[in-house]
């Protein structure tokens, strides 16, 4: 397993290197002047020129890339042209908000998706199955921003049930930063009111983010449950007198979880990219909104950092998924250890 | 008898995998004579299919060589001359996978004709129909069918027709009937025998079914874990098997008549399992299962000796070239 992770790590290092090169390359080839963007409209030509020199923007592409790589080895991702502070500071400030959001929506989608999937798979062709399939079709087909807007319109504007903006009310004092997760931090600090606020605020964005995944996961679970129900070993277990519930929740669930877990890496990717839109709609001060802002601002260093962070996150999630899958599936585990 | 058309000399094929080196074929030598049917018999993991695949050029031998009509053919397919590809053809074991489900039977049969420029465009359809008739499939019914919609036996017939398309002289038949029912197998075997006579073909027939061998081959080569156990003319072999393994094999065969039952050797009863080709036991690879195991068997690998004319065996019991008493 360790060997496998190391080889994955090397592979991902190469991929991240290529990714940064790709972004750098495109950013250099494309028209547009990041210095001008960064300094705004009143800047004099001299100021722009100075700024270019300061950020090495006047150097040829390989030199720029060299400087960037060199500072990366020191753990420095450069300075954001937009916020004018180290990109790492920005990332530290914004990542927890998105993580919290994705985590909550992940839990939502896992619980709801699994339960509906298992039930629909087991009661195949029942009304429940039909209904959940129809809803999941619609869920998959609705882009995240549309879900967010429908939810806003329904939950906030019509029913006035959930707040629509930010992590807390605008005037509220955020809890002391420990983990960066507001809800958790509030609970740790004993500010239960703030925690409740946080929960209320996170509900809509997390739900909007979860919809597509609930639909997807429900569908996959349903299919694999339905498929595995036909397998010889289910017949064999049945014939050997193992009770139905044990077959369903033990012998069927575990192999059926494998495809669901396997796609979680991809699901995470979708959630992350959907967060780009959901955070915009709900004014969620997170990493994704930051990413969109820096992208729109042609903030080269920050764009590269953002893409790399996503790449790393994606890689980590995939490794975790692989480990979980190999835990669930001895076939893969045995293959990997070469035993 | 006529001259040897194919000679395999000390052929070795190892595969390197994560689990270790697989010694699929380990120093195998045998030869096939013009016009005969040579049977290559062994259980799973014995390396018989690897030999077949090496002969047609899917693998390159790790060591040793194979000569076809005196020409060294120990090369992979893309280094082989076209003429050789035309001469040696193979029929694969799995009829389901050997025909492309997305191509019609006509297209499948046309490919070798086109590649080897057997006939011009106008004659090609004729030739395809002739081939189909040769394997007793009415061309009108089958030409435009997809392999998906025909039965396993028919698929194998098409595969045989395809193999015969460029008029080869040597056919490697890799378990052509193992996936089929006996009644279909009978049909195909009959067809093959007939074609062999009509077209003067030489067969290397690979199978795990000894009873089948008994009925169609001139000579048999028995393999165990990548090595040869015994080589003998068929009649001689069945009447007088030498190697304990071949005896075990024969005694394990389910039979349908008392005559057959009486025919089987009685002294060797099957036990143990075939070792993994990654972990071949030291000495004689069969010694763990052998009822006549001797002390030497676990230490030294026996060599092949000719005990009687044309009857070779690789067993310490026969190390002095004579039958044990």
């Amino acid at each position: 397993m360790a060997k496998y992770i190391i080889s994955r790590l090397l592979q991902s290092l190469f991929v991240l290197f290529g990714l940064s090169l790709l972004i750098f390359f495109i950013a250099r080839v494309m028209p547009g002047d990041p210095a001008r963007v960064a300094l705004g409209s009143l800047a004099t030509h001299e100021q722009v020129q100075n700024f270019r020199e300061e950020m090495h923007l006047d150097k040829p592409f390989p030199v720029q890339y060299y400087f960037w790589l060199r500072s990366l080895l020191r753990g420095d991702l450069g300075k954001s042209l937009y916020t004018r502070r180290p990109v790492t500071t920005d990332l530290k400030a914004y990542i927890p908000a998105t993580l919290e959001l994705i985590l909550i929506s992940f839990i939502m989608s896992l619980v709801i998706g699994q339960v509906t999937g298992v039930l629909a798979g087991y009661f195949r062709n029942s009304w429940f199955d039909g209904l959940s399939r129809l809803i999941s079709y619609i869920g998959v087909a609705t882009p995240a921003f549309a879900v967010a807007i429908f939810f806003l319109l329904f939950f906030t504007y019509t029913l006035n049930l959930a707040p629509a903006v930010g992590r807390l009310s605008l005037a509220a004092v955020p809890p002391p930063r420990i983990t960066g997760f507001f809800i958790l931090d509030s609970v740790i600090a004993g500010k239960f009111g703030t925690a409740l606020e946080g929960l209320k605020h996170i509900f809509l964005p997390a739900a909007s983010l979860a919809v597509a995944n609930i639909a997807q996961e429900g569908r996959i679970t349903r299919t694999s449950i339905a498929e595995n129900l036909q397998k010889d070993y289910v017949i064999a277990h049945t014939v050997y007198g193992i009770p139905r519930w044990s077959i369903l929740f033990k012998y069927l669930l575990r192999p059926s979880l494998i495809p669901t877990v396997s796609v979680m890496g991809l699901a995470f990717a979708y959630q992350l990219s959907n967060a780009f839109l959901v955070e915009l709609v709900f004014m969620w001060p997170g990493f994704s909104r930051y990413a969109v802002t820096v992208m729109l601002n042609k903030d080269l260093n920050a764009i590269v950092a953002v893409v790399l962070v996503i790449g790393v996150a994606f890689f980590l999630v995939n490794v975790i998924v692989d480990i979980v899958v190999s835990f669930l599936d001895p076939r893969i585990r045995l293959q990997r250890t070469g035993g | 008898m006529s001259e040897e058309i194919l000679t395999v000399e000390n052929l070795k094929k190892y595969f390197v995998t994560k689990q270790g080196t697989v010694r699929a074929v380990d120093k195998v030598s045998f030869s096939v004579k013009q016009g005969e049917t040579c049977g290559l018999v062994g259980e799973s993991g014995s390396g018989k299919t690897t030999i077949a695949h090496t002969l047609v050029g899917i693998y390159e031998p790790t060591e040793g060589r194979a000569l076809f009509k005196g020409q060294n053919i120990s090369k992979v397919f893309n280094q082989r001359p076209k003429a050789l590809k035309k001469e040696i053809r193979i029929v694969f074991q799995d009829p389901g996978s050997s025909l492309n489900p997305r191509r019609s039977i006509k297209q499948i049969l046309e490919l070798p004709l086109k590649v080897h420029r057997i006939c011009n465009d106008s004659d090609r359809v004729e030739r395809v129909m002739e081939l189909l008739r040769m394997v007793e499939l009415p061309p009108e019914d089958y030409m435009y069918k997809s392999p998906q919609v025909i039965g396993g036996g028919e698929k194998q017939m098409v595969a045989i027709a395809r193999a015969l398309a460029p008029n080869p002289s040597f056919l490697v038949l890799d378990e052509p009937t193992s996936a089929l029912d006996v009644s279909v197998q009978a049909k195909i075997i009959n067809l093959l025998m007939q074609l062999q006579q009509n077209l003067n073909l030489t067969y290397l027939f690979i199978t795990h079914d000894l009873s089948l061998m008994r009925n169609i081959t001139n000579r048999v080569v028995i393999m165990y874990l990548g090595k040869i156990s015994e080589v003998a003319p068929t009649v001689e072999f069945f009447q007088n098997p030498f190697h304990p393994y071949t005896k075990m094999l024969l005694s394990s065969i389910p039979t349908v008549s008392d005559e057959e039952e009486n025919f089987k050797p009685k002294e060797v009863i099957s036990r143990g399992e075939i070792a993994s080709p990654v972990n071949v036991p030291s000495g004689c690879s069969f010694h763990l299962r052998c009822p006549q195991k001797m002390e030497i068997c676990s230490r030294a690998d026996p060599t092949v000796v000719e005990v009687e004319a044309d009857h070779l065996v690789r067993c310490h019991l026969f190390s002095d070239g004579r039958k044990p008493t």
Partner: protein
Amino acid sequence: MTPLLEIKNLQVRFKIYEGELKVLNGVDMVIGEGEKVGLVGETGCGKTTTVKSVLRVLPTPPARISGGEILYRGKDILKMKPAQIRSLRKGEMSAIFQDPLAALNPVFTVGHQLYDVIKYSSASRGRKRLSKKEIRARSIAVLKETGMPDSERILSNYPIQLSGGMRQRVCISEALSASARLLMADEPTTNLDVTIQAQILRQLSELVAKKKSSILLISHSLGVVRNLTERVYIMYAGNMVEVARTKDLFADPLHPYTKALLKSVPKLTGEGISRGIRGRIPNYLNPPAGCRFHPRCDHMMPICEKERPAFFTGGDSDNHKVACFLCRR
């Protein structure tokens, strides 16, 4: 001999795009208490469907049991409630399947699966619950019974770590751990090498003899069935065509299909091989009327096209029955 299982005129159909496949076309079969019965037929003749019907594990839809009765000790399985069927499965009926790899759950260890099988089948008897230790000991014991080497280590292995022969031994242990009264073995050795096949069959027959179970051995191989059974059914295209004591059948096959089949088998004695049976098995969508074998039969008579032959007694024994008009006296 009291009949343990009696199948009467079983009819099973499958719905597919083109219509309904009439797969089982009135299957009749009797298995006596402690009897060893063979069922031989070529691919696609309905052997597995028959077994699955008896076990009540046929996927419905697409399958549909459209007629007949399956009597187990006189009670119709087809009319039983789920609870009754469950109790049947615990210790009364069991089965071994063709592909042991598919029949074992790939993500649980052998020990885990065996553990549950033993736990639940032993629980039904009203006996006191076995402890973990006892179950483990029994697991090892049943594995040993099947001739499994190193059975303790095997318990912690996953099915893919085992060879084909070992997997089948595990399946046999599972099937027999409940001391089944009727064991249905559906092509238990098809994917195995001959030497292993011989071992498994030997082991199986010993176990069955020891437990005094009845066995239904299903195979496409006449040889396999001949060596292990007392009575043989020959099945063709969803019908039983011939049944006889094993000895009688192999000595004196009566049905043209049985005859042809027997001739197709290559023999060790080297008598050459017949030309097989012409044609192919019928399409179940529109099976031939009358005797389903008649289009391939060399002895076809006008009546064969019209009427399905009933069992006629043939040969020397009363037990030798043939569904062929040639044997009508």
